[in-house]
Structure formats: structure tokens, C-alpha cells
């Protein structure tokens, strides 16, 4: 039953224009991250080559190419920004579209043998698979971009780090898929559900980081580092709240995985991932609980 629900959902989602447009936007943004990386690489290398020529004409030794000092995956650091913006929006819509039609179709579904828990698990699995497919497409575009910019295929280690980054992104985006689903179950109305989900996205992506580290402008830069300790009570509070700002945890963990902000231990990365995992589990359990109590008998979503 779970597989049937998941399969139906995948087919239905891939045929919805809104979803396809957002998916295309994410892929374009991924390609854009590569283009920006290439542009930056091209400009700096051009300036470097001119400098090398100038220094050579004076008989001075040339410094090493700055790109040789940077991690190869740094070219994709813009992805760490695009995923919480465009990716999260796509994930919200994905979660919303996964359940919203069932406000009217639910009467037919639940007059069948399927249990509500099986149904919700099927929906979550379906959305998770669609998200994997989206991120695999984005991973492929990223790999091609890296190969073009660096003029060589990424190493196995780089590909491993890139895969780990996309796995982390999947977990991060699942939070938003589940928020999209939960808001449908709580509000019932199409427009209100989407507005509520967008509200949650705004709070998580913009408002909460402003309270935690956005108050310290230098720490708003991407990737951000842990706030310095301070004696002021307010900043002590914001520093304590920071682990619960999932967008910051995502950016910090991504920076560590891509090695664009120094290296952190695996334990430290796992500590950053834990709030994401915890929130996903809580939202999934809440979703299952809400479906169990949801009234599918009226067959209307008021729109």
C-alpha cells in the first residue's frame, strides 16, 4: 500500500507545472553556481597570469596560483546559499502538493483498506524519493560544472564530499517537505496552507538567523563560524539559540563538508546535523498523528 501511494505521488508531482518550474529553477541555479565559480576562477587566473608575466619581466619570483590554495569544491560554495533559498521553497511546494489534492480525494482513499499511517508513510517516502531525484540531477550538474572549470574530473574524495553535501541537503530539504505537508493537515485550505508554509520558511531562513548570528554582521557571511563568546547576556542567549537555527547549522556543516571554511571533525559535523535529523523525525511523527485525526469526510478544501 505504501509503495502504491508513493508511486502515485511521484507520477502526479512530476506532471504538475508549478513543481516542474521550481525544479528547473533549482537546476538552473546549480548551473549558475558553476558559471559563477568559473567566472570567478577565470578572472582571478587571468589577473594572476598577468601578474606572473609582469613579475617575470622584472625577474621576480611569482607566487603560487591562488586557486591551487583553495579547495576545488569552493567553486560551488554558492550552492550552500541556493539550497536554503530556492531548494527549501521547492521542498515546501513539494510537501504541499503531495497532500493538498487529498483534501478532496481522501474520501476515496480512506474508504479503502489502507490505514492512515501507511498512507502518510507512503507520502513521505514518495516525496523523499522525488527529492533524491532532484538532488541527483543537481549533483550531476555540479559535477559537470567542476569538471569544466577545473578541466579535470573531480577526484573520488571530492565526489565523496559532494555526495555528502547533497545527502545533508536532502535531510535539510526534508524538513521543508514535512513542513509543507503539516501545514496542509493543520489548515485544510490550499492558500492558507501554502502561506503558512512560506511563513515557516521565512522564519527559519531569515528571521531566526537574524536573532542568532545575524546580529553580528561578520558572522552573517557565508560560511559562518561559531560566534565568539561574550559577556553580554543578550549575545550569550543568541549564542545558545544558534544550535537551533537549522539554516546556520546546515551552512556550517556544508562548509565543513565542502572544506570551504576550514575542516571540522566528523563529530562536530554530526552535532550540526543532529537538529536537522531531530526536527525531521518530530515533523514526520506530527504528520502521522495529524493524518490520523484529520477529517477526510467533507471532501472539500474550501477552494
Amino acid at each position, binding site marked *: *500500500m505504501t509503495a502504491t501511494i508513493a508511486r*502515485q505521488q511521484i*507520477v502526479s508531482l512530476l*506532471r504538475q507545472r508549478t513543481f516542474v518550474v521550481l525544479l528547473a529553477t533549482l537546476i538552473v541555479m546549480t548551473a549558475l553556481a558553476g558559471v559563477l565559480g568559473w567566472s570567478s576562477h577565470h578572472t582571478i587566473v587571468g589577473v594572476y597570469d598577468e601578474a606572473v608575466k609582469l613579475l617575470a619581466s622584472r625577474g621576480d619570483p611569482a607566487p603560487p596560483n591562488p586557486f591551487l590554495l583553495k579547495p576545488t569544491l569552493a567553486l560551488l560554495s554558492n550552492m550552500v546559499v541556493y539550497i536554503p533559498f530556492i531548494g527549501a521553497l521547492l521542498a515546501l511546494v513539494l510537501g504541499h502538493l503531495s497532500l493538498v489534492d487529498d483534501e478532496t480525494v481522501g474520501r476515496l482513499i*480512506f*474508504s479503502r*483498506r489502507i490505514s492512515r499511517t501507511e498512507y502518510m508513510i507512503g507520502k513521505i517516502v514518495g516525496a523523499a524519493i522525488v527529492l533524491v531525484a532532484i538532488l541527483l540531477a543537481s549533483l550531476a550538474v555540479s559535477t559537470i560544472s567542476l569538471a569544466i572549470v577545473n578541466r579535470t574530473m573531480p577526484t573520488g574524495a571530492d565526489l565523496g564530499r559532494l555526495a555528502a553535501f547533497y545527502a545533508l541537503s536532502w535531510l535539510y530539504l526534508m524538513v521543508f517537505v514535512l513542513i509543507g505537508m503539516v501545514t496542509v493537515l493543520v489548515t485544510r485550505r490550499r492558500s492558507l496552507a501554502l502561506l503558512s508554509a512560506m511563513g515557516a520558511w521565512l522564519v527559519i531562513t531569515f528571521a531566526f538567523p537574524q536573532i542568532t548570528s545575524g546580529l553580528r554582521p561578520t558572522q552573517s557571511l557565508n560560511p559562518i563560524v561559531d560566534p565568539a563568546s561574550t559577556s553580554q547576556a543578550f549575545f550569550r542567549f543568541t549564542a545558545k539559540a544558534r544550535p537551533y537555527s537549522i539554516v546556520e547549522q546546515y551552512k556550517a556543516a556544508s562548509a565543513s563538508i565542502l572544506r570551504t571554511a576550514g575542516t571540522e571533525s566528523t563529530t562536530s559535523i554530526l552535532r550540526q546535523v543532529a537538529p536537522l535529523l531531530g526536527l525531521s523525525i518530530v515533523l514526520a511523527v506530527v504528520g502521522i498523528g495529524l493524518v490520523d485525526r484529520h*477529517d477526510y469526510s467533507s471532501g472539500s478544501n474550501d477552494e
Partner: protein
Amino acid sequence: MGNHVMTETEQPSAPAIELEALCHSYGDTEVLRHIDLRIEHGEIFGFLGHNGAGKTTAVNILTTLIAPTAGTAKVCGFDVAAQRHEVTSRIGYLPADVRMYPHLTARENVEFFAKLSGVKKPSTAVDETFEYLSCSDLADKRVGSFSTGMRQRVGIAQAIVHRPQVLFLDEPTSGLDPVGVRQLRETIIRLNADLGMTVFMNTHLLSEVAKVCTTIGVLDHGELIYKDTIAATTERFPDETSLEDIYVRMERSAS
């Protein structure tokens, strides 16, 4: 048409539908009050009543969408609250204003519901059902582009694809043109005759009830005020010329 459902399909000795002191409330509002009703296998039962009488609530309980507040409701001898799995294996349901997944084709929609009902060979069952309902031409079109009548035909297909023993139809004629109403009437009669399906139909269209139903029940403000066969009903009210007149008289006496 063959039987496609994996569960046992023997006709149980229990009645098709049995309600005992069935009550339902939404908050403080009592919608159904101590309903006792027994419908035998093979009947086509017309459930009549004014808007808000509680007809749809009764169907929602019988299709396991909501649980009764008090009393019991059984389908084919199985309790709708305690034996949901057994009940849902034996029923088909066509709600008023049926909606399906607009981005899927009629075939994909009906196949989806066939799978949810545990049909062994869903693809074959869907083909046979479309053929039986003479709507194979709709099979590969997306439901989102369908008119009310087309949606209704696909809605019936999803309701019978697993060959249920009891078919619930909630205001099945709403939004249909006269041709659609006639097609629906013929389909109900065929399903009852060919497959022996018991049909439980909520409706306001009394002319159709007179042509299709074998038995009627009248619900008034949550209370069942009348239940008998169509033949016995016309005998009981010899002064009235139509079922509509009989119904209006019952409603007036009740109020």
C-alpha cells in the same frame, strides 16, 4: 466481469447493512438519532431526506470515514469501527462531486484505487471495468479536463473496480444532465442485476428513486421516520400520485 479482490467474497448470512441505535453528533449538534435500519443483500435502497437530515453522515460512517458517536453500524456483518479492514474490502463509494487526481489519467486513477483495494490484476480489472461501463474512450485522458458527467463515470469505475458487495452512492445525480442521469440509472440497475451489488443511494431526485430503488428510507432531522419497499409505499399512500407527493406528506407529518 470477474472478481478481482483478494479477500473472500462469499455472501455472508448477515444483512448487507445493519444499523442499531446509531447516533452521531458534531459537538453538541446531534446529526443522527438512534437509527435502526436493516438492508438485505441485493436491495437498491434510496435514502431520502432534506438537506442536513444526516444522510451524508450516515454514508460517512458506513464507509468508515468517521466513527459513530454511539450505537453500531455493520456492513456484511462487520462492524465499521472495529473491523474497518473487512468493511472496506466489501464496499465501493461514490461521493457527491467526486474528485480524483487531476494530473493522472482515468486509467491511472482507477488502477490506483484498484491497488488500494487489493485487486490482484489491477490493469485487467480496470480494462474490464471501463469496458463494462462503456467508457474506454476516457481511459487515457487526464481527469483534470473532464466534465462532471465524465468524472462521474470514472467515479463509478473506481467504486466498482474491486467488485464490492455494497455500493454507496452519495447524491450521484448532482450536476448531471438528463442523459447522464439516465445512464447512471441504467448502470445502477445493471450493477445490481449482473453483479448482485447492494446499492445504498442518498438522493434528492425522487423521480429516479421511483425508477431505480426497491426500498426507501426517509430521514428527518437525524431520525429514520420511514422504511419500506417502493411497492408497499405506493400501496400505503393510494391518494398520492407520485413518490414526490408521498415524500412531501411524510416530511410535513414529521414536522
